[in-house]
């Protein structure tokens, strides 16, 4: 029976291939998920089989399931198995699956390196092709690094099929491994002229992709591309090149001039719409880049606009869309030429296609003027009402606001109209842009003073009807406007007709359903309104009514006090107490209105969002400079040095404005006005009648005039913006009439001269006077604001790494910078270990040179010889060109660099490089090449060769020069490299406190001088904690900077045995004074799990925090480490006892101190004195200091000859001062500290250090 079952399942298993699976899924529509899960079980069975065909079939099915959304990453290893099959059929299945589901996080991906390498070099081109295709989808930085060289070789494969794939994949390799760009670039450039069009196209593709991100590095390729453009007939290639030129022209206007003609020719000649469109696009880019320099391209603009109009009018929606898209680019620089097609664009607004409507909307932005703004917005409002999809409606909403608010509300002539529009927009349900409307309301109300009265009335109405807006608060973004409404009503309550009514509206129970931040604003502004109400009542003498209001407030406020939102709760309870106090005062018949109003006195000015950033750095202030000596690396950088010599004085908080009496307030206000008057950046609110508004809208002195009350303020219900349109028209008509009248009068005076112009009079922009004289207060900026408006570039841009200078790489460049050995692509050798790389700077270069070559490994020999010959050639050259000492030095460095690098290179690029090195003459610099090419006005037939003809003139000079350049650049490069190495070192330091590195840091931290002294011996603070045959522990204790009662114990665990150690647990017996900080919930007897396991030979560091109470005495704590040793036979529990020694030194923190502060400190009497004498010390003085600094956490304050003062501070703030004097063979240390016990122990420990050391 069992066999029957097995057989049955085997039958099914093997019957089911991809087609069966698909069929099965289609037949199980009802229980698809269940069916698939059984299929996955079967697949798991199949994957367990040894037969590769079965596995491949299973993987193929998995690929299908992956498409349906099933995670198949669990089969990653099986996929690799299938990939490594020798048969193409299976291999292809494996690579397909891998390309669908592998990614950088797939851990088994590193297993594929060798398999892929094997496939890349397979004699079968399709094996190679499949591997390349697969790799292009899942290449990781590691794979890119390891395979870059193999792929580069494939770029010169005999089969174009492989070549084009290899060229394309290089882009992915560059992205993941930017270092490969420089070595690979020459070959990539070669491929631009490959005989196979496919390969050529691929190369163009890759370079365009690269150039798009960092165009300036590819400018020198322009002549080559130009040649391709004029010779190629492949539209794909043409489009790419033309797009590339579009990216290059902004960098080089001369290029644009050169391009215009051929592009225009193409526009006229091509029949391919795609090509035509790209040409137009690039011409536009050229025109934009030229717009500042040459205005004389109106013909080209006309041509573009004409062509675009044809596209827009085309019945093909795609062309229409693209036409609008390109039009918007012209709009930015040549708005006039687009504006003439306004009719067409407005027509597109009615298009049934949303994409097209959106594009038309974009264009609208640039088409508005004072004259047509209201009209256009009205049209948009109709669209808003009609729009069904929320996305389009939201887009409309933002566009309306964008259009109206652009360039500081430049086109708005009637702000009442705008407020009404905003209020109308609040009727939109379910929009996401409530906050946008709200911020506009706030902005307008704050900055346009004249409109406040109207705005407040409208906002009060909104608050009154809040229930309509806040209907379904949770998903309705529109309730954000209530935030603005409440704030405006509160802040400008003096404009309210009936503040009490608004106050009541704001305290309705329904309000508590609003989001917390809105409620908070409600509460705050309720008080402002309350103040307004009180003022009115008291001035009217209605004390009773005032008290009633207070009572109402006391009654309503508790509903906010109960709010779940902390902000609301806090404000409400605070205000409730205030109001209760007011009630008490009122009961005593005290008039309180004035005082309550004073709470909110003073005006808020709008501040520009970037104001803070723009504050100029005062002269002489270097923000990058250290204010104090940089702290030693054991301290975190953000620690602010506390005041050492005097206790922090309690800071007096700045007196609040409200505490000032009225007189003082007035005085300050006056002073501020004075200041503002003298500040050219502040827009005065005081009327100055000299200038009129319409000339300089919102820029300078603008008179504030009362609102023209021809517009009825009281609108029943919600306001209707449409009526403004009519009113506006009437008003304008009236204005025109008036003007005409005036003119007529003038004319009459002039006896009717030139009457015919009268009828032709058209209304121009300037003729429209705004309805209200408005003062648009500009946002405040700091004095001398920096004009630069740097865009914050995305620092995470993956393409940044590819910003590599390539010009001087190509042979013939004047500043030819050859590939350094380190830049060569790693080839198939085992990777050099890190330590090897780090050692390099110290390697004695001359020794390296002299060492006999025979001692080298055989396979490196050849390589070495090549290097040697290269060097010799160089030497010869140098002899010719009169070598200087400097050059000699250079060379030595160069050799050193070569010796440094132990990676052997088999690649031919080096040989080639040597060759190019050999013939540096006769080729002009790349830059001048480009210049030359650009300078020749007519299109040169063979741009490549012309520069060559120009050379002979300068030939005698050029070789030397280019060589020099080369020298310079290579030295530059060296410096760079050196830096890099330093950085590497640093990072390594962080990773692991390796001993000798640490010593270096210690010297730096204290000593200010940089004398050339003997190098310091390596030092380490880590001392042995315990050791047995399994594990070794070393530890170091550092004070915790953040917490004065804590120290951090860093323990390095090192696996001593050949077995795996796991489940390590660290535990100590706490003393009363010193306790291990355990996770909450753990008892004092619980240990702390070490957060890692240790494979054989590995070490890792864990940190444990201890709290200490008294630090004046050293301490010892007993502890145990328990762990499990996992051997082949099983696992055993082991333990290791240890004693943790908390020295007094470990409570000290390296703290820099200035000499004057130090002197003051010594003068103070609180410090106790102690002294120490060390005999028979024969180490250099600076070593001694470094040791004290390093081991005992001191810093050097001052050093004079053989005498130094040192300082340190304990975690609990004790000062420890040392005066170290060095005599013959002995050192005396005088010490002062405000804790004698601590001091004596520290001195004891210092003594210990030097006695054990010597």
């Amino acid at each position, binding site marked *: *029976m069992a*066999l029957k079952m097995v*057989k049955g399942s*085997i039958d099914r298993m*093997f019957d089911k*291939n*991809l*087609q069966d699976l*698909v*069929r099965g899924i289609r037949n199980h529509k009802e229980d698809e998920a269940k069916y698939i899960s059984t299929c996955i079980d079967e697949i798991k069975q199949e994957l367990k*089989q*040894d037969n590769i*065909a*079965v596995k*491949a*079939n299973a993987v193929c099915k998995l*690929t*299908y399931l*992956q*498409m*349906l*959304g099933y*995670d198949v990453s669990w089969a990653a290893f099986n996929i690799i198995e299938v990939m490594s099959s020798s048969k*193409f*059929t299976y291999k*292809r*299945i494996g690579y397909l699956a891998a390309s*669908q589901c592998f*990614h*950088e*996080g797939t851990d088994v991906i590193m297993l594929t390196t060798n398999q892929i390498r094997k496939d890349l070099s397979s004699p079968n081109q*399709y094996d190679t*092709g499949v591997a390349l*295709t697969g790799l*292009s*989808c899942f290449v990781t930085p590691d794979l890119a690094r390891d395979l870059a060289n193999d792929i580069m070789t494939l770029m010169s494969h005999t089969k174009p099929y492989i070549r*084009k*794939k290899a060229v*394309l*994949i290089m*882009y992915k390799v560059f992205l993941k491994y930017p270092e490969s760009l420089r070595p690979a670039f020459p070959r990539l450039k070669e491929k631009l002229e490959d005989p196979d069009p*496919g390969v050529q*196209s691929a190369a163009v*593709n*890759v370079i365009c*992709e690269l150039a798009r991100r960092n165009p300036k590095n590819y400018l020198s390729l322009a002549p080559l591309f130009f040649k391709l453009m004029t010779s190629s007939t492949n*539209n*794909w290639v043409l489009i790419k090149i033309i*797009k590339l030129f579009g990216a290059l022209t902004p960098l080089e206007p001369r290029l644009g001039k050169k391009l215009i003609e051929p592009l225009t020719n193409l526009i006229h000649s091509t029949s391919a719409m*795609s090509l035509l469109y*790209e040409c137009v696009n690039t011409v536009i880019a050229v025109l934009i880049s030229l717009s500042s320099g040459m205005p004389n391209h109106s013909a080209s603009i006309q041509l573009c606009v004409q062509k675009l109009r044809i596209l827009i009018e085309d019945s093909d*929606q*795609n062309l229409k*869309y*693209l036409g609008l898209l390109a039009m918007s680019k012209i709009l930015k620089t040549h708005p006039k030429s687009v504006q003439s097609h306004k009719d067409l664009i407005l027509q597109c607004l009615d298009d*049934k*296609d*949303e*994409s097209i409507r*959106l594009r038309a909307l974009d264009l609208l932005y640039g088409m508005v003027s004072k004259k047509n703004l209201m009209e256009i917005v009205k049209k948009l409002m109709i669209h808003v009402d009609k729009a069904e999809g929320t996305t389009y409606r939201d887009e409309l909403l933002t566009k309306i606001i964008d259009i109206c608010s652009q360039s500081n509300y430049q086109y708005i002539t009637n702000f009442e109209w705008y407020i009404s529009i905003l209020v109308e927009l609040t009727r939109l349900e379910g929009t996401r842009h409530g906050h946008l409307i709200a911020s506009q309301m706030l902005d307008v109300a704050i900055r346009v003073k004249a409109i406040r009265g109207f705005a407040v009335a409208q906002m009060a109405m909104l608050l009154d009807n809040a229930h309509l807006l806040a209907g379904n608060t949770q998903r309705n973004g529109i309730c954000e406007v209530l935030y603005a409404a409440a704030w405006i009503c509160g802040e400008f309550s003096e404009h309210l007709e009936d503040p009490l009514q608004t106050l009541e509206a704001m305290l309705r129970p329904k309000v508590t359903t609003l989001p917390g931040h809105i409620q908070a604003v409600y509460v705050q502004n309720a008080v402002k309104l309350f103040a307004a109400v009180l003022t009115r009542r008291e001035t009217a003498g209605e004390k009773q009514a005032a008290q009633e209001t207070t009572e109402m407030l006391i009654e309503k406020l508790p509903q906010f006090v109960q709010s779940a939102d902390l902000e609301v709760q806090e404000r409400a309870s605070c205000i409730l107490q205030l109001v209760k106090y007011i009630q008490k005062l009122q009961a005593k018949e005290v008039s309180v209105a004035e005082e309550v109003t004073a709470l909110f006195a003073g005006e808020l000015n709008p501040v520009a969002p970037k104001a803070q950033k723009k504050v100029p750095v005062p002269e002489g202030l270097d923000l990058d400079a250290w204010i104090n000596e940089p702290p030693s690396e054991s301290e975190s950088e953000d620690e602010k040095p506390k005041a050492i010599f005097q206790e922090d004085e309690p800071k007096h908080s700045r007196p609040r404005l409200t505490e000032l009496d009225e007189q003082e307030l007035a005085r300050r206000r006056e002073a501020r006005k004075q200041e503002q008057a003298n500040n050219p950046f502040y827009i005065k609110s005081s009327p100055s009648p000299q200038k009129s508004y319409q000339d300089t809208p919102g820029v300078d002195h603008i008179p504030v005039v009362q609102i023209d009350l021809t517009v009825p303020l009281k609108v029943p219900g919600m306001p209707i913006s449409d009526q403004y349109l009519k009113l506006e028209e009437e008003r304008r008509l009236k204005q025109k009439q008036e003007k005409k009248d005036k003119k007529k009068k003038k004319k009459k005076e002039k006896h009717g001269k030139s009457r015919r112009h009268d009828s032709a009079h058209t209304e121009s922009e300037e003729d429209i006077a705004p309805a209200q004289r408005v003062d648009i207060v500009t946002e405040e900026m700091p004095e001398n604001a920096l004009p630069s408006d740097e865009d914050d570039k995305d620092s995470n841009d993956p393409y940044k790494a590819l910003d590599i200078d390539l010009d001087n790489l190509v042979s013939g460049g004047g500043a030819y910078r050859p590939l350094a050995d380190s830049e060569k692509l790693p080839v198939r050798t085992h990777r050099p270990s890190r330590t090897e790389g780090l050692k390099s700077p110290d390697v004695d270069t001359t020794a390296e040179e002299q060492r006999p070559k025979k001692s080298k490994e055989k396979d490196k020999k050849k390589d070495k010889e090549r290097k040697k010959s290269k060097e010799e050639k160089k030497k010869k050259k140098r002899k010719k060109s009169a070598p200087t000492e400097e050059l000699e030095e250079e060379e030595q460095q160069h050799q050193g660099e070569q010796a440094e690098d132990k990676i052997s290179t088999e690649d031919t690029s080096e040989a080639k490089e040597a060759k190019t090195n050999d013939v540096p003459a006769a080729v002009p610099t790349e830059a001048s090449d480009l210049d030359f090419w650009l300078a020749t006005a007519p299109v040169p037939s063979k741009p490549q060769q012309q520069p060559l003809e120009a050379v002979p003139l300068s030939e005698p000079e050029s070789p030397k020069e280019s060589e020099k350049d080369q020298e310079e650049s290579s030295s530059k490069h060296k410096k760079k490299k050196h830096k890099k190495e330093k950085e590497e070192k640093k990072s390594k330091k962080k990773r692991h406190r390796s001993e000798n590195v640490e010593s270096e840091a210690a010297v730096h931290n204290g000593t200010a001088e940089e004398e050339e002294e003997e190098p310091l011996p390596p030092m380490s603070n880590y001392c042995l904690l315990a050791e047995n045959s399994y594990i070794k522990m070393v530890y170091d204790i550092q004070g915790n900077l953040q917490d004065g009662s804590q120290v951090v114990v860093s323990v390095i665990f090192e696996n001593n045995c050949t077995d795996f150690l796991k489940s390590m647990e660290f535990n100590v017996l706490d003393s009363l004074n010193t306790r291990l900080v355990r996770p909450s919930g753990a008892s004092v007897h619980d240990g702390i799990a070490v957060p890692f396991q240790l494979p054989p030979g590995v070490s890792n560091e864990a940190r444990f925090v201890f709290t200490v109470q008294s630090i004046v005495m050293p301490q010892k704590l007993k502890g145990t480490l328990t762990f499990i040793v996992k051997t082949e036979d099983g696992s055993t529990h082991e333990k290791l006892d240890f004693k943790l020694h908390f020295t007094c030194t470990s409570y000290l923190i390296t703290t820099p101190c200035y000499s004057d502060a130090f002197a003051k400190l010594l003068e103070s009497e609180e410090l106790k004195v102690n002294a120490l004498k060390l005999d028979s010390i024969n180490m250099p003085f600076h070593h001694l200091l470094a040791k004290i600094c390093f081991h005992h956490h001191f810093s050097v304050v001052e050093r004079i000859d053989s005498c130094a003062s040192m300082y340190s501070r304990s975690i609990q703030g004790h000062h420890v001062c040392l005066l170290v004097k060095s005599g013959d063979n002995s050192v005396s240390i005088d010490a002062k500290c405000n804790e004698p016990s601590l001091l004596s122990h520290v001195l004891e420990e210092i003594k210990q250090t030097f006695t054990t050391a010597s």
Partner: protein
Amino acid sequence: MIKAILVFNNHGKPRLIRFYQYFPEDMQQQIIRETFHLVSKRDDNVCNFLEGGSLIGGSDYKLIYRHYATLYFVFCVDSSESELGILDLIQVFVETLDKCFENVCELDLIFHMDKVHYILQEVVMGGMVLETNMNEIVGQVENQSRLEKSEGGLSGAPARAVSAVKNMNLPEIPRNINIGDINIKVPNLSPFV
């Protein structure tokens, strides 16, 4: 760069998905759903470009699609690609499918997803356009099918696999012979030999 190529039918069922940037599976499905939602509500006579796919890329990215009978072919591309060029490319891809499958229909894509992938791999590689010449594409695809055929293909695999498994299980079979069950088993297995 092309960021993703999606083929789904009028009901949003995926027929081919090819992401050139990693997204986890659930995200992929969400992108398909969102894209389908965006594309399916559009009339056939509106333009083939779409912005606003929020899940992939953002503002620099566009959806360019074509609708053939029951299938949508959607390419998600960034601004370095020519819009009309990609439309042409979709056409090239579909015509290639048509040549390789001889009158391609949705069923071909359903049952031969792997083959469609192999064809696509000759058109686009790693998000970049590899080849636009249809004859070249078809030639390479055919060469590879020929190579597969010469190896016996995957379709021949199950039969051979069973025989392999049978051989592998041989030592177990004799053990069962004694039970007497063999009369039923062996004839059943024999057709595969």
